[in-house]
């Protein structure tokens, strides 16, 4: 009796384990369509945009309708708050409620959960269904294998594509240059001279408020807010994919030469050129940003279009309101490296990380969803909406977005970035057309400013390719800690006196390296040499 029961139970167990796999096989998939309706859940970021419902609007209806008609797949959207998504993903996976198609910007988390069997290996599925996924492969290209482990052949996630790789720009106050009779700076020396000129002519530039003069402003995120400056100190031969792989850091902090760049910032700081309290203001701090809007700041480095974003809230608009029409920031590109080139880091072509949790029982339907999204006509509609409601064409044929205030036609994110998970950034199928259209997309900002900024951001830009040699074991659990330490080293060094600079930098670096930085460097170096030789 006992034996019988045991046999029965184990059979039941095997059957229940096999069940999802049995369903996943495509015997219900005939001529490109399921014979019975399948249901998949799809994650969608929610940014709490006023005037729209992120999972119930014209665009989500379009997806649902087409997926049902074309493949007999019913799509159910599940929202995740954009600003806490990194933590929420962990909770969903632990509770077994993660969407069948999930995405996140936290690739470290995917790797951790993949190792804990909470995330599917996509490779067998991609191999089996490759024939149905031609659009996806065409559009994503090498992003399909971005995270494929070269040793195990496993694919934890596929990687969305970033269309616009412009990253960071240097902005200066055009009206201040004019007032002082200065030309737009074209070298690091001219830029420095300009900052000194701002400092020494505070009375002329700011009048009664001369004591508020800030020639150069930044926050404690120095690696970002001085990225183009620091990268210009990196010798040209080190600006390749190889050294990006070995000295890997998303602020390029470990590359040779950066120390000398920081030394210059240290000198600037001690000469009163940089906002004195910059370290007290965390990235995104409104106070620091308000200083730009109030007109006290002469130069900054921020996201390539940052000062023009957000219409009435933009730095551009507010500055003109408080300081007059002439008060504008323009993008400049003065920082040349040892080869005389204004190299700067652009984004790579990777964006969000898309993965299937191990609770996904409809891998084929899920992959078909991604493939459907990759088709140009679908992407185009979702990004641009309906003509006359979401966009119109100017006389020269440029597409101009006219976002509705509210209602079912309002996109809950710009270009529906959250709905179109495989793409970030407008794509009209033609680079020039897209750029022209983008330049029209900023309220209260003349298109020339955007064109200048876009060109400056891309000029001599380095868009790193992907060198994938598998997960770096030494990075596990320590990457975020090291990122914090990096910020500490940068801030403390710039705040040091000129005489102490070397001692402060060296002790900070020693701590960084001892805390895991050296181990990562060694492992990356060894992996690179093993794969490509010296």
């Amino acid at each position, binding site marked *: 009796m006992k034996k019988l029961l045991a046999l029965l139970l184990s059979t039941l167990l095997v059957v229940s384990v096999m069940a999802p796999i049995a369903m996943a096989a495509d015997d219900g998939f005939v001529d490109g369509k399921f014979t019975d309706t399948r249901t998949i859940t799809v994650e969608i970021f929610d940014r709490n945009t006023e005037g729209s419902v992120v999972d119930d609007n014209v665009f989500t209806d379009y997806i649902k309708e087409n997926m049902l008609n074309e493949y007999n797949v019913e799509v159910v959207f599940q929202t995740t708050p954009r600003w806490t998504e990194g933590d929420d993903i*962990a909770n969903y*996976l*632990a509770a077994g409620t993660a969407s069948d198609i999930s995405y996140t910007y936290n690739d*470290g*988390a995917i790797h*951790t*959960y993949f190792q*804990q*069997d*909470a995330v599917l290996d996509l490779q067998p599925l991609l191999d089996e269904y490759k024939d149905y996924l031609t659009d996806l492969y065409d559009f994503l290209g090498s992003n399909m294998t971005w995270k494929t482990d070269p040793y195990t052949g496993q694919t934890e996630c596929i990687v969305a594509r970033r269309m616009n790789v412009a990253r960071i720009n240097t902005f200066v106050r055009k009206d201040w240059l004019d007032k002082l009779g200065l030309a737009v700076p074209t070298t690091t020396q001219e830029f420095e001279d300009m900052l000194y000129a701002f400092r020494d002519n505070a009375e002329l530039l700011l009048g009664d408020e001369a004591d508020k003069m800030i020639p150069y402003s930044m926050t*404690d995120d120095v690696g970002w807010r001085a990225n183009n400056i620091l990268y210009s100190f990196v010798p040209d031969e080190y600006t390749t994919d190889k050294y990006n792989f070995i000295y890997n850091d998303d602020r390029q902090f470990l590359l040779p030469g950066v120390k000398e760049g920081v030394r210059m910032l240290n000198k600037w700081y001690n000469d009163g050129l940089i*906002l*004195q*309290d910059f*370290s*007290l*203001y*965390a990235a995104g701090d409104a*106070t620091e940003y308000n*200083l730009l809007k109030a007109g006290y700041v002469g130069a900054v480095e921020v996201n390539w279009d940052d000062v023009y974003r957000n219409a009435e809230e933009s730095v551009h608009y507010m500055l003109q309101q408080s300081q007059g029409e002439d008060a504008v920031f323009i993008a400049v590109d003065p920082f040349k490296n040892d080869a005389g080139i204004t190299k700067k880091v652009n984004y790579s072509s990777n964006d969000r990380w898309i993965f299937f949790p*191990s609770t996904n029982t409809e891998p084929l339907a899920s992959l078909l969803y991604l493939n459907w999204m990759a088709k140009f006509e679908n992407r185009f509609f979702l990004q641009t909406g309906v003509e006359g409601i979401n966009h119109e064409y100017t006389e020269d044929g440029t597409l101009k977005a006219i976002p509705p205030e509210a209602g079912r036609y309002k996109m809950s994110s710009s270009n529906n970035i959250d709905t179109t998970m495989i793409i970030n950034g407008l794509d009209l199928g033609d680079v020039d057309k897209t750029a022209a259209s983008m330049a029209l997309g900023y309220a209260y900002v003349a298109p020339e400013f955007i064109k200048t900024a876009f060109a400056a951001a891309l000029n001599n830009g380095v868009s790193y390719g992907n060198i994938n040699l598998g997960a770096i074991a030494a990075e596990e*659990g*320590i*990457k*975020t*800690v090291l990122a*914090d330490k990096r*910020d*500490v080293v*940068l*801030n*403390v060094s710039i*705040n040091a006196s000129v005489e102490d600079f070397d001692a402060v930098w060296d002790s900070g670096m020693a*701590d960084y390296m*001892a*805390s895991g930085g050296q181990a990562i460097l060694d492992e990356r170096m060894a992996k690179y040499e093993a794969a490509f030789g010296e």
Partner: protein
Amino acid sequence: MLAETRMQKAAKRYKTRMYLKRYWMLYAMLLIPLVYFIIFKYVPMTYIQVAFKKFSITKSAWEMEWAKNSGLEYFIKAFSNRDFLYAVRNTLMLNALGLVFGFPAPILLAIVLNELPYRRFKRITQTVAYMPHFLSWIIISGLALQLLATRFGLVNIVLRNMGLEPIQFLDKPANWVWTYVFLGVWQSVGWNTIIYLAALTGINPELYEAAAVDGASRLRKIWHITLPGLRSTIVILLILSLGQIIGSEFDRPYALTNTLVTSVSNVLSIFVYNYGIKGTQQSLATAVGFFQSVIGVIFLVNANLIARRFDERGLW
């Protein structure tokens, strides 16, 4: 003999039955908090074993594999980590300073308030003093930045206009420690006064009257009547604070810190957050939390022992 004990036993059983019949409702009511503690305190406590196991999101704590070095891997990892040792030092330093300055402050305030003859003024002062307790540390850190920043902080603008040198309250580690301690006292002093004021109302007024007849001055009365009257309250609160000497709040250091002062502001809770939560090393975080609890209990028990040796009642 035998019959007798049997009868005794029967009598005892009867007594118990009658007792239960009479008081079962009290026990039933006791069950509610008991169930609460079991479900929300003791059952989660079984997850302490995560500190000794390799964490997995898909498995329950019982199914996870044991960590290396007979389960002690994460303790070894923590104790060999310099950041952890600094965090222990900073936690002890900030908590000790908090205790030295923060513990007597409400006692003094309570005594001063108690001595005030004008009752309305006393009430208003008391209310004003405990208001900061309701502000979150995020708000306080925002206030601190607006008031104390070197360039654009209000305090330093005033100092500069008076021709004085500005003070770097927040960006020099030594200054930051004092700012941190002071803000803590400011935030909690009023609230902690309440319990002392309650204890003060329990002191027999006849004692004061008798002392007045004997010609005792105000300070003498405070020394000989008020303070002894508060003694047991002070001791109990001191024992409780000592139990938290290595515990650390998260929001206060996290909100007040900046990249220039991490050498003194990284306390254990920050360490747990950085390595455990952000770095997804859940086992390490649990190990550190477990360590904190054990040290806390040791301090608590010893403080209680010492208090009892000095003839105080202690906690138990």
